[in-house]
Each structure stands twice: as structure tokens, then as C-alpha cells.
């Protein structure tokens, strides 16, 4: 097979399904035109006007900042607390039932509660995002830290790895596959909570704008917001994959060779 043909085939494999889906959507909108389901061209036409003008700074940016702040807060707290709990058997026994309970609460129900406590400002949204996204990070970190191989741990002890060195050179790398799995789950939870928090109580943000358009029956504009959220999620997931590739390359190769 020639290089060009192989490239074509690769592009087809990646883009094939999305193109097919958009084409199907377009065909549907031509066959059954509907006020509530505008055609892809209509949405594409309003997309630039809606999101790439003043709203870029007024709504998109604040949303992304909240998302990032909440996510980073959840990640830092989750890894720090998870490491502490995972390393101490006593702490683990004391906290495990409570953690399982809190994790079982669907995070969106915390929104009204946190609104009462923290008000309606940015801090409230960051808190909502962090309070939901922390659980997968925390629980996965505990699991990962607890499961450090015993022989490896003995080796580290014999060769004098103690305190911070032990943490940095043994515990965190050994737990990193689990920690990354937790961070990945947390990312999608954080996006969902960002939108919900903005829909509930906000005067800015992507979620707020989508609800606004819906109330004003600006249907193509509303749809363009949904597409934007999809794109944000997709790009963040790509960025996350790149990070994973750097941090976990040894883990994947190791699994390949031992499979």
C-alpha cells in the first residue's frame, strides 16, 4: 500500500464516523425540517457569531477558568488526602465507610446546598466542581497507594528511601496508573458539574448561556452551545491522553510485554 493510501485510510478511520453522523443529521433535517432540530449548516453559521465574539471573554473563558480551578483543586486535595489515607491503615479503617457514603451521593444534589453556604459567586461554582470531582481521585489514590508491591516496598526500605523520597520515588509512581484513572473520571464529572452549576445560578458561563437561549427560543444558538460543550470535553480529553502518555508510558509497555 502506498503512503498516500495509508494516510487516507487512517483519516477515514478517525473521521469516518463523525462525518457519517453529521451527514445523517443533515439528511434528517432536510427530510423532516423541524424548528427544534436545525440543520448542521444553520448551527455552524451561528456558531462563530455566538461564541467567537464578546461571549468568548464573557462566558467561555469564565466557564473554563471555573472548570480548571475546580478540577485542579479536586486533583490536589484528592491525591494529597488519598495518599495520607492510603499509607495509614488506621486512617483507612476510620474513613472508609464515610467515604463510600459521600461518594454514593450524586454530586448535582450538592449544588443547592453549596449555594446556600457559599453564595452564588465563582467560589460556589468552583466548590461544586471540586466537591464532585474529588471522589474518583481520592478513592483511586487510596487504592493505588495501598497496593504498592510488597517486594518493591521492601527494596525501597533496604536502600534507605524514607519520608519524602519514598513518597516521590516509590509511592506516587507506583500508584500513578490508578491516580490517572481517577483523574480521568474526575474530568468528565467536572464538566458536567460546571454546566449544572451555571444553569442553576449564574449570570455568565456556557451553561447559563445555553439555558438563556432555550428560554428565548433561539434554538440554533442553543444547539451551538451544546456543540461547544462537546468540543471542550473532546479537547480536554485529548490533552489528558497526551499527559497520560508521558506519565504512564512504562505502565502500558509493561502490560503489553506481559500480556
Amino acid at each position: 500500500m502506498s503512503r498516500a493510501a495509508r494516510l487516507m485510510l487512517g483519516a477515514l478511520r478517525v473521521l469516518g464516523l463523525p462525518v457519517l453522523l453529521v451527514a445523517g443529521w443533515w439528511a434528517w433535517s432536510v427530510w423532516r425540517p423541524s424548528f427544534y432540530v436545525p440543520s448542521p449548516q444553520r448551527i455552524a453559521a451561528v456558531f462563530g457569531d455566538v461564541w467567537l465574539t464578546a461571549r468568548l471573554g464573557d462566558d467561555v473563558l469564565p466557564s473554563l477558568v471555573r472548570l480548571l480551578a475546580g478540577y485542579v483543586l479536586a486533583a490536589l486535595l484528592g491525591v494529597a488526602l488519598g495518599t495520607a489515607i492510603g499509607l495509614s491503615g488506621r486512617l483507612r479503617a476510620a474513613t472508609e465507610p464515610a467515604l463510600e457514603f459521600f461518594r454514593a451521593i450524586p454530586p448535582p444534589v450538592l449544588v443547592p446546598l453549596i449555594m446556600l453556604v457559599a453564595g452564588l459567586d465563582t467560589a460556589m461554582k468552583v466548590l461544586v466542581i471540586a466537591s464532585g470531582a474529588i471522589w474518583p481521585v481520592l478513592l483511586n489514590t487510596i487504592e493505588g497507594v495501598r497496593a504498592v508491591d510488597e517486594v518493591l516496598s521492601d527494596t525501597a526500605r533496604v536502600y534507605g528511601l524514607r519520608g519524602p523520597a519514598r513518597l516521590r520515588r516509590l509511592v506516587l509512581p507506583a500508584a500513578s496508573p490508578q491516580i490517572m484513572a481517577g483523574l480521568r473520571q474526575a474530568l468528565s464529572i467536572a464538566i458536567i458539574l460546571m454546566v449544572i452549576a451555571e444553569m442553576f445560578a449564574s449570570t455568565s458561563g456556557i451553561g447559563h448561556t445555553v439555558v438563556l437561549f432555550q428560554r428565548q427560543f433561539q434554538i440554533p444558538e442553543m444547539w451551538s452551545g451544546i456543540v461547544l460543550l462537546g468540543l471542550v470535553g473532546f479537547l480536554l480529553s485529548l490533552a489528558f491522553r497526551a499527559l497520560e502518555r508521558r506519565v504512564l508510558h512504562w505502565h502500558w509497555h509493561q502490560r503489553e510485554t506481559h500480556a
Partner: protein
Amino acid sequence: MLEITGLRKVYEGRGRVVEALRGIDLTVERGELVCVVGPSGCGKTTLLKCVAGLLAPTAGQVRLAGRVVDGPPPGMAVVFQEYGRSLFPWLTVSQNVELPLREKRVPGPRRTALVQQALAAVGLADAGSAHPWQLSGGMQQRVAIARAVAYEPQVLLMDEPFAAVDAQTRADLEDLLLGLWHRLGITTMLVTHDIDEAVYLARRVVVLSAAPTVVQEDLHVDLPHDRDQIITRSDPRFAELRAHVYGHIRAAKTDPGRPPAGTMKA
């Protein structure tokens, strides 16, 4: 240097109580090379871990240079039986060998030299940039040995360190260990299944009984000081010592604690 007195170790798991060591008394002088042999499951690894300060004894104690061992003492290197699990998979081979030296605060240039020497000595000079999981089992075991060698320990504990390598590499590694021991006078305790290896390497062979485990025999190896794979192994005295140890192990399996019948006096 190393005094083990009345060492007893009982594992207590859910409903299962295993007495791995009944009572071990053993002294290893500074600079001595002792091999420990015994039937499978008799507690050789347990003994080594107690000496390393990784396991707390149920009774008795281990003293190193006069001090009671209650955690891994500094200046001690251990080669574990599960060599594959003792290498850090996220580090390269060189980094694995280098890590203990970093913790020991050995200056950079010296570190690099030690790592290279040690890897060359085990025949892995070219594998430094590989990751452990890219190597065969025998190569991984040699990395673990190189790491212990580079550490320049005063006390070296090895648990079946040559089990996963072919006969030729095994002979080479045995001679590497002997060379190192001659040069640096490291106090060495080596656990092995292989009676020939024990007699070839050691100045003393300690035979453990089957459970309940005690020291069954403590044998002085009166072979010439300089060992050679061919000359030493074809020495008639080598065959006698080997038969003597073999008899003890067989007796240990059937009737622990009793001296073997029908073996010649060593």
C-alpha cells in the same frame, strides 16, 4: 559481626498459624561468606528478612555490629528472591542501579562510574537505557545483583540470586561474587537451593532443617581459599563435602533434628 540468637518467627494469618522458624542460633564473623541451604519452604527467606530488619522476630534477636536490628540497617544490600518485582518498572536499568546511591548521597560523577562498573561486571553494559520489563528474567536478576554491588555494602544478603540464569552465566556470576568478596571483604549471607553452589562459594555452609526449623548443621568448608570452577569442583574433597550436605538435607526432610545416618564424617 552478625549474631542471631534464639530467632523464632511465627506467621499468624486468618486462622492459619505457621511456625516458619523454631529457634535459630548463628554467628557470622566480619568478612565471612556463609551459604544457607535447606529444603523448600523451611524458612530461608524468612531468616534473611529477619536479618535484614524487614520482619520483626516473634522471639529472639538479630544483632549487627553489636546493635539490635529493628529496621534495615545502613550499609546493607539485599538481592530478593522475587528479583522481577524488586526493580522499579518506571525507571531504566541505570536509574534502578543509581537510585540507592542517590539516597546515600554519593556524588554524581562517582555514581555514574559505579553504575557503569556494576553493569559491566554483570554483562549488562549495553542495557543501561532499557526498562526492566524489556529484559529477560535472568537479565533482571543481574540488574538486581548490579544494584547491590554498586551500593558497596558492608553486609550483603542474597536470596537465591543465581536461580534464573543459564549455567555459564551462573558460573560467571558466582566468580564475580567471589572476586568482590575477596576484594572488599563484604560480610555475605547467601541462600541457595543448590548444594554444589553452596559448597563452591562458601567458607561455611549452614543447613537448616525442615519445619520446625533449626540449624541442622554448621559445616566448615576446608577447600583451598582460591576457588576455580573446574579445579575446585573436581577436587575429591568437594565431592565429600557435597555428599555430606546432601545427606543432611535428605535427613532434614524425613526426620528433622536428627543427624543423618550413613554419611561420612566431614
